[in-house]
């Protein structure tokens, strides 16, 4: 075998702490290495051309590149060696950047380590063999999880792109957080006027099937062929009949449970349509408070319903859908500010969250768009906004910046002045984070045109004095303590990962980060991909985002889906398990352990049971390879021999000869 080795400098990233030329020189002493050199940027066009050229000139049949992590550029170089006429699997990478030059201080140790990593790669490559991908059909349907603005955008773009879409939403209506907002920054245009039409499009689009009050129960399969089960929770209303006339809502006598859509500022009837623009505009019963379902008496809604769609016997329903790709757009939840005891832990009625304030501002809200404070319904004059409640705060395990609070606080300060001209807003902030088109100008307007008093400092405590709340904070610019007698205090609560996100991640095999936000495939180059092929991210489920960013990501995820499903056939990774029938004794252990049901039992011509791998189903985890007592089933590209070769490269066999 003739192997060529290329040691990348990566500018100074590697060359800075690794002696690349000497590594290249050492590599030349390794078995089968006939050519070895160092190069400035292996991944650059000249770098790749050099590799291709070398393959041709030195008629190499295998290539090792020592550079960054394979998770970054393995595909790049595989394509390069392919262009050079080799099989893409006759290539190995040694990670001498992330695992060497960036973590080791001393040059000679790094250089030695790099050389050994190259040796490992060479030893493995010597045992590689050409592999050819199998092709398989994909289901031309997309599952979008979450009907917030990101999910809505992704669903519409996919549907417009000609794909069938199944949109699953946990709540009764789509719209997500944005549907609760009164206005949006920096244009101060009406949130529901912007979002409403898109929601209607969802309802009317021929390619879109909408399941609300529904959650993903289970996910099986793999890219191109996912089998998903959706649980449609019982609403006790037959939505095929319900016209959304709202008669039942008017008549319902049980109105004691807090209204989640209005952030518990008021109560809602037990049968309800959350808001006027709800999609679908259908009524649903809250089982925990409905008199009929709890006490077995009432049933008024059933009596008044003109189309007789109330069904107290209704049960949850499981729906199975096959899809080729999945977009996760489960959004975020608001930080629970009760973790700040100094803000009263709910003892003070007039300390509310920013989202509750949105509902007070909204014409469809509990106060019809008039700002009235919860305690006594009075119109507040002094309104204090406290930013970074649950953001940039290690002590409550939220060290990250939620990104959009600065902007919505500025918006709310502006709206406050619009609603109550003789009001005065005070905004306690740490730093104003307003990158984005017209964003900083917007915060300036809040101060300059609307006279919001911005105070740089955190608030240490809030305490009642008479019918006011004294807000005691710092003005670090004045270098002292300040107090404001407030009528209303609005906490700019930060964003945290949506409840249930982690559990959903387990079903989708998408890992969450330490705060429960889903981890993208690459922070720069694959922001909407995940490490599970065919599953994409959109919106705040990947990290706090404002509306434009969420919409952008929704479209980005959609474009990835359309790209994926535009191919007639998908290529499966040929690095899958392969059975050696001569060794297989048909014990079936591999069939039991395979998580994907990718191994089936067949009979050879003598009728003996044998295992056989279904290439397109196998995901290449190699669990079976370790399980097989005969060593009869081997994971291609990661065979026992290949891995042991790497081990031996590091720890040369001593007392016993190795038996490869």
């Amino acid at each position, binding site marked *: 075998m003739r192997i060529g080795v290329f040691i990348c400098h990566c500018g100074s990233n590697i060359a800075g702490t690794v002696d690349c030329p000497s590594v290249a020189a050492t590599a030349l002493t390794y078995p089968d290495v006939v050519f070895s050199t160092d190069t400035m940027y292996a991944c650059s066009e000249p770098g790749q051309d050099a590799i291709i050229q070398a393959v041709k000139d030195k008629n190499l049949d295998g290539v090792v590149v020592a550079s960054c992590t394979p998770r970054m550029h393995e595909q790049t170089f595989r394509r390069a060696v392919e262009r050079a006429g080799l099989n893409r699997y006759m290539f190995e990478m040694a990670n001498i950047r992330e695992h060497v030059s960036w973590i080791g201080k001393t040059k000679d140790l790094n250089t030695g380590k790099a050389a050994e990593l190259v040796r490992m790669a060479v030893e493995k490559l010597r045992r590689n063999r050409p592999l050819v991908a199998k092709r398989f059909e994909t289901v031309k349907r997309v599952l979008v999880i979450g009907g917030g603005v990101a999910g809505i955008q992704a669903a519409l773009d996919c549907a417009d792109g000609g794909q069938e879409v199944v949109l699953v939403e946990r709540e009764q209506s789509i719209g997500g957080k944005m549907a609760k907002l009164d206005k949006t920054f920096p244009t101060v245009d009406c949130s529901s006027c912007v979002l409403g039409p898109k929601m209607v499009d969802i309802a009317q689009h021929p390619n879109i099937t909408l399941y609300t009050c529904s959650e993903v129960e289970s996910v099986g399969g793999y890219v191109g062929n996912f089998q998903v089960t959706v649980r449609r929770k019982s609403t006790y209303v037959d939505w095929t009949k319900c016209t959304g006339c709202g008669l039942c809502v008017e008549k319902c006598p049980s109105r004691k449970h807090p209204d989640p859509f209005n952030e518990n500022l008021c109560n809602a009837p037990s049968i309800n349509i959350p808001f006027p623009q709800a999609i679908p505009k259908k009524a649903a019963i809250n089982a925990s408070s409905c008199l009929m379902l709890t006490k077995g008496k009432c049933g008024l809604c059933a009596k008044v319903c003109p189309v007789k769609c109330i069904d107290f016997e209704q049960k949850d329903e499981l729906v199975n859908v096959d899809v080729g790709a999945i977009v996760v757009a489960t959004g975020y939840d608001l930080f629970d500010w009760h973790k700040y*005891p*100094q803000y009263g*832990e709910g*003892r003070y009625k007039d300390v509310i969250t920013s989202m509750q304030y949105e509902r007070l501002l909204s014409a469809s809200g509990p106060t019809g768009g008039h700002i009235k404070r919860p305690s006594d319904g009075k119109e507040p004059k002094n309104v204090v906004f406290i930013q970074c409640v649950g953001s940039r705060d290690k002590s409550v395990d939220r060290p990250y910046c939620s990104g959009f609070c600065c902007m919505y606080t500025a918006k709310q300060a502006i709206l406050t002045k619009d609603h109550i001209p003789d009001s005065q807003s005070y905004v306690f902030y740490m730093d104003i984070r307003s990158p984005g088109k017209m964003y900083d100008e917007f915060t300036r307007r809040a101060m300059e045109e609307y006279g919001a008093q911005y105070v740089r400092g955190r608030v240490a*405590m809030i*305490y*009642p*004095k*008479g019918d006011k709340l004294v807000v005691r904070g710092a003005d670090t610019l004045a270098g002292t303590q300040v107090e404001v007698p407030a009528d209303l205090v609005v906490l700019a609560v930060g964003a945290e990962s949506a409840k249930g996100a982690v559990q959903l991640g387990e079903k989708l095999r998408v890992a969450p980060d330490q705060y429960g936000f889903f981890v993208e495939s690459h922070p720069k180059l694959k922001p909407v991909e995940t490490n599970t092929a065919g599953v994409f991210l959109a919106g705040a489920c990947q990290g706090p985002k404002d509306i434009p960013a969420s919409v952008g990501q929704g479209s980005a995820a959609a474009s990835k889906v359309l790209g994926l499903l535009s191919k007639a056939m998908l290529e499966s990774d040929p690095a899958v398990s392969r059975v050696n029938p001569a060794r297989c004794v048909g014990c079936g252990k591999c069939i039991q352990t395979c998580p994907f049901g990718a191994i089936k039992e067949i009979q050879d011509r003598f009728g003996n049971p044998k295992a056989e791998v279904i290439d397109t189903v196998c995901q290449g985890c190699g669990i079976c390879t370790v399980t097989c007592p005969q060593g009869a089933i081997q994971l291609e590209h990661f065979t026992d021999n290949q891995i042991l070769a790497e081990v031996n490269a590091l720890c040369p066999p001593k007392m016993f000869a190795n038996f490869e």
Partner: protein
Amino acid sequence: MLKVAYYPGCSGQGTSLEYDTSTRAVCKALDVELVDIPDWSCCGSSPAHTVNHVLSAALSARNLAQVETMGMTKAATPCPSCLTNLRTAAHKMDDPEFKDKVNALLDVPCRNAVDTQSVLQVLAENVDPELIKGKVVKPLTGIKIACYYGCIMNRPPEVMRFDHHENPMAMDNLMALLGAEVVPFPLKVECCGASYGIPRGDIVHRLSGKLLDAGRDVGADAIVTACPLCQMNLDLRQGQINDALRENFRIPVFYYTQLLGYALGIDRAELGFEKLCVDPRLALGRIKQPQQAM
């Protein structure tokens, strides 16, 4: 019967004598045995820790060592200032290096094996409320009380490990249990000016004035404290505060143990109401006498 080593604290011998006597009385009544620490010495109070932490810890550790020689592991003190010093010393001595430095100053080395609590915590966590209820002979019905905990009984939570650091409730619950009407006091853990009474009276006047003002706002007949320093600043200096702030506060400031003792029907002599500077009679007068059973 619960037994704890008892550390009265210097002020218990002087300015807050009544706190000490009433504490002993109520503990006796509630079957909590307070065993005096033999030959205890001053914990160093705030002056010590403002000079040096090792010195401060050593002054406290001497007493912890005394408790260890008593073969006891649990100590209690009525005074939050002493409590902070004793607990902080113990907390810091978890670091062996620091512990060695401290023991280097001591005759008898401290093993740091004592957990010190405030008497309030002992009562709140070890005495069954029902038992207290059962022993109440004069319910405090009719009096409006604001409970003031002072700044250091619950802070910092990592060290003090008791109740809540922003909104403690132990005294509130106790007083409510005795039948008093407890008004929500917003400045429960605000500082009263601590030991600055003498060197910087102006500080105490302003800070304690704020507290009295808050007490008046919530319509309290009396303020109840668990701290000798707080009590002294609010009570003894109330006149000074009135002069300094041109106010006319007349809010009696009790130790919670005094009212607890009162409710339990303990002999007035042991409760030392007469030692209070702001005349408590008016406030006590609001307490409705229980109807005699026919």
